[in-house]
């Protein structure tokens, strides 16, 4: 039998399986560097999908900054500060003018001497008048 004939014949299945078995046992293993690169790619992919969890946005936010932000930012905070200052000024520096504005409702004994409580509330008289009108 010539060499060419033997090539045409080839190995039988049992012999070929011996090569496959050897091939299975000789599998190329990934090095530690490759494993690290693959894992780094995975983490980079997570980071790319979660921009809020990275960089500047991860900076700690102070308490006052958080409260200010929750209330609507610095314009709202400025308005609230102005109103608070006006309240202090009204209470401490100009009680007479305040009394005029409120018609004497605020200001201690003057209130009780000028108005009775039933004058400030919708009394039974009003209710009786309404009922009478309905009849």
């Amino acid at each position, binding site marked *: 039998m010539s060499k060419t004939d033997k090539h045409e014949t*080839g190995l039988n299945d049992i012999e070929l399986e011996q090569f496959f078995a*050897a091939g299975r*046992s000789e599998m190329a293993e990934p090095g530690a560097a490759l494993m690290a690169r693959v894992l780094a790619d995975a983490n980079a992919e997570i980071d790319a999908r979660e921009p809020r969890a990275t960089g500047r946005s991860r900076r700690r936010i102070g308490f006052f900054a958080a409260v200010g932000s929750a209330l609507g930012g610095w314009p709202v905070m400025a308005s609230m500060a102005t109103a608070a200052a006006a309240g202090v000024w009204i209470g401490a520096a100009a009680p007479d003018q305040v009394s005029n504005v409120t018609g004497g409702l605020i200001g201690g004994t003057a209130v009780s001497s000028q108005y009775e409580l039933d004058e400030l509330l919708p009394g039974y008289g009003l209710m009786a008048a309404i009922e009478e009108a309905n009849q």
Partner: protein
Amino acid sequence: MALDASSEVSDEALLVAFGNGDREAAMLLTARLTPRVMGFAARMLGGDRAEAEDVTQEAMLRLWKIAPDWRQGEAKVTTWLYRVTSNLCTDRLRKRRGVDLDAVPEPEDDRPGAVAGMIEADRARALEAALAELPDRQRQAVVMRHLEGATNPEIAEAMEISVEAVESLTARGKRLLAKLLAGQREELGYVED
């Protein structure tokens, strides 16, 4: 996710967890899948380790990127990886075809006692060299079936062909391998008279 329960979790479930930002799932998938992709790529590329590592990293990167869109039950992760890895290897083989076909290391021919038969490492090297001679599709089918242990339906899905076509590719690939290895065995003097 507890590490002691990791072996019971499927690749698909881990990939969905990774898609939701689970870094522990990333570690488990890296440890579980990278060796398989590397082994497959090395066989497809005729044992070129550096190129196989590049392909492995690229295939795994594509897996990470597709994770958020992965739907459990549609496909097996390993089947998807085989397909991506095969395509990457085929691209590289096309680029280098005709340039370095002889780059695969030859089995040693001066080892004492060789007449009694090839030792396993020599057989593996001879197989690697013979696989490099097969047409790409035959090599892919034979490697997946006989070295990776994939089933014919899995190979069919990875190669996007019918099961019958897989059987045909595998049969033709094995016939050619048998001839190539028989010739190599004789040339190396491993045949006993």
